[in-house]
């Protein structure tokens, strides 16, 4: 990747991150690594390609070493002894390659670090430095700009969005043979505000219908909103880890390792938005097909639409022959609505 040469001005923009340290947590993690190397195997990047540069501590140290160089007396005067690095062209290039291009920020290494150091937070800090300096990979910068301009990274206009919802609602009413089946939009006072990943209205509108069907069956008071998209939209991230797992377990086997120990699919941390690293992203997913094959699964469930793309590409590349579906699609497909379910649909009273 061709980069603009670093100048003092650019460097200072990056170092601002350390000059305005916002809390003790970051400071503590910047000073905590014991360099024991125990975190190496936690990362899919290292597991698939056991190169020392993929050890999570090495990524964290890229950030900490710059901190030591500019923010500690010992690092300033004895950089060689204390592993303090100049924020120069070489460092920046390595940071871009490893922090953007070789980390999904899945947090698995944090979970297994012998001292609980938040490695993904340090990676995030490093990415923050790089983006302030203008070294964010071009493709990612483009999606970030789109999200800032139009509230969603795919530049979907409000008109396009409402049109999509309109025909989805008509189809839903027809499919369920129920006029009460609706896809509410901008309804004030509803109990649940359901946010979407922009890819849903753009490429996978049927997953919105699936969710609407589930809400309808549950008699929920819910609404979508124009101009509000969830960039994570991750069921586990929403904090309902246990309930999401219970629903999945009723239907399917889980993979091994599972739960919080599960391996990242390789698409997180905005990897999917950076085509510069496509090849590496697909190669580090090499563990996933084994996990999936071991379960004998024909259908692979992901928490949401955001998590579909990488498994879908794994499915194709590694010739798994499985179907990849979201949890809401599976639940919607499995629902058998009784007559009374449709009759007693509650337009629940607003609770907000």
């Amino acid at each position: 990747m061709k980069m603009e040469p670093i100048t003092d001005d650019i460097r200072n923009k990056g170092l601002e991150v350390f000059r305005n340290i916002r809390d003790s947590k970051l400071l503590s993690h910047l000073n905590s690594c014991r360099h024991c190397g125990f975190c190496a195997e936690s990362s899919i990047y290292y597991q698939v390609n056991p190169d020392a540069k993929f050890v999570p501590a090495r990524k964290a140290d890229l950030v900490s070493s710059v901190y030591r160089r500019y923010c500690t007396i010992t690092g300033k005067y004895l950089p060689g002894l204390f592993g303090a690095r100049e924020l120069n062209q070489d460092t920046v290039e390595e940071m871009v390659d490893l922090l953007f291009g070789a980390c999904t920020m899945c947090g698995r290494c944090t979970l297994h670090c012998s001292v609980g150091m938040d490695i993904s937070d340090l990676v995030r800090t490093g990415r923050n430095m790089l983006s302030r300096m203008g070294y964010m990979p071009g493709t990612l910068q483009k999606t970030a700009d789109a999200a800032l301009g139009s509230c969603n990274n795919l530049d979907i206009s409000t008109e396009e969005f409402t049109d999509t919802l309109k025909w989805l609602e008509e189809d839903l009413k027809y499919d369920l043979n129920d006029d009460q089946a609706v896809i509410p939009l901008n309804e004030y006072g509803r109990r649940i505000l359901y946010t979407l990943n922009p890819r849903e209205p753009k490429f996978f509108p049927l997953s919105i219908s699936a969710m609407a069907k589930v809400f309808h069956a549950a008699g929920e008071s819910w609404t979508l909103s124009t101009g509000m998209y969830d960039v994570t939209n991750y069921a586990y991230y929403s904090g309902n880890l246990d309930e999401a797992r219970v629903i999945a377990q009723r239907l399917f086997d889980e993979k091994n390792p599972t739960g919080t120990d599960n391996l990242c699919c390789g698409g997180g941390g905005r990897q999917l938005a950076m085509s510069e690293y496509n090849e590496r992203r697909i190669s580090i997913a090499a563990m996933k097909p084994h996990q999936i094959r071991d379960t004998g699964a024909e259908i692979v469930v992901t928490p949401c639409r955001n998590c579909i793309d990488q498994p879908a590409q794994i499915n194709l590349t590694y010739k798994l022959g499985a179907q990849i579906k979201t949890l809401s699609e599976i639940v919607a497909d499995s629902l058998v609505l009784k007559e009374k379910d449709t009759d007693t649909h509650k337009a629940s009273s607003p609770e907000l």
Partner: protein
Amino acid sequence: MVWYHWIALLAVMVCLTGCIIHLVKLVRPGKPRDYSRPAGRVGTAILYSLSGAMNTTKKESAFLHLPTYKAGIIYHLGIFSAVPLFLILLSRSFHSAWWQWPLASLFAVTGLCGFGVWAKWIVKKELRSISIPDDYISNILVTSVQFMSAIVLLHPEWLPVYFLLTSALLIYIPTGKLRHAEFSLPQDISLDIFTDGVASGRLAGCNG
């Protein structure tokens, strides 16, 4: 008090001053702003980090590196035992006692574990690639103090060397990696933002 006691006292002062400066710097920015609803307890998290989290069956990093992990725990046991011994030797003149031999043997074992960890750093390529000279120096100082603790318990005539070595270690603590000791507790406290114990780190994880 003889001359080497004074040197050691001076080193204690330097060490404490350095650590206090770091501590002030560390706590000044305050707790992280947390936008999510609070859950879990700080006390439980700290307790977990000092107990369950060290369970060798819980953490992949521990069970995949069992010999080194155990050596590390024993090594740290030696570090924590060396502190009271230093204070005893500093505060009163040396008297022989029944516990000299068992304690000396303990320090010999913990020192060997420290040496093992150091040797692994030299031998393993991945470890070399994430290590810096500070790591090796810190280990050499701490390991030497443990060996010297064993020697001085049996041969008190080595007390001057023991105190000089310990003083060097004390002065070195605030400068480099060894200050991690000071950053460990705040780090444990920060576990409270990772609600529900272990699941935490990963909840902050996937963001597409």
